């Protein structure tokens, strides 16, 4: 779907364990974003990247870290998962700031 894939699609993990979600794109887009989506909160930005090794925090970055060592991959890590991080996570890409996003299909993460 427009060259963006997320993995895994579903994951169940235990509280306190580390979790890494992967976003992979094949179209050389400069900008990549991680959002979480929760009922009553819409889409909230966790972190974003504007180039290799260039990342910045979004509005709900606590408890999350990201890495972008190459253009095509943007990794989201939960260092020690908590139940409040149970959510659906979406990766998005865009070519330039004036364009709309293309979203991945999402990762449903459950922390038990």
């Amino acid at each position, binding site marked *: *779907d427009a060259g963006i894939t997320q993995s895994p699609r579903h994951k169940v993990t235990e509280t306190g364990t580390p979790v890494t979600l992967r976003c992979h794109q094949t179209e050389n887009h400069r900008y990549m974003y991680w959002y979480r989506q929760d009922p009553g909160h*819409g*889409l909230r930005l966790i972190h974003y990247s504007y180039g290799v090794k260039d990342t910045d925090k*979004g509005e709900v970055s606590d408890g999350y870290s990201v890495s972008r060592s190459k253009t095509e991959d943007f990794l989201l890590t939960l260092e020690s998962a908590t139940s409040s991080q149970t959510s659906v996570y979406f990766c998005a890409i865009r070519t330039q700031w*004036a364009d*709309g996003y*293309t979203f991945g*299909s999402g990762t449903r993460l459950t922390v038990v």
Partner: protein
Amino acid sequence: GESVGLHLPTLSVQEGDNSIINCAYSNSASDYFIWYKQESGKGPQFIIDIRSNMDKRQGQRVTVLLNKTVKHLSLQIAATQPGDSAVYFCAEIGNTNAGKSTFGDGTTLTVKP
């Protein structure tokens, strides 16, 4: 801070009727607005966009209207079909290089046959 909100969380229409979904935004510096459609189990999909120098933009069966005076935009769907049933989000993009978006919470559109 910035916020984007939709007026109604749910909207139910009869098949064939026109639908209007509304959105209010607070950042008067926003340059660019987008409507997204999200079907169950999928990521949001781009529907139509509009830039701040325009009042209206039309697509296939969809029209977006922008009123900068009252900071309001709307999505009109003509001849609504069952396949239009989804959650619709508006998003505004500020004029920064990172182009971070602020999303509304979404309106769930249900089309009755």
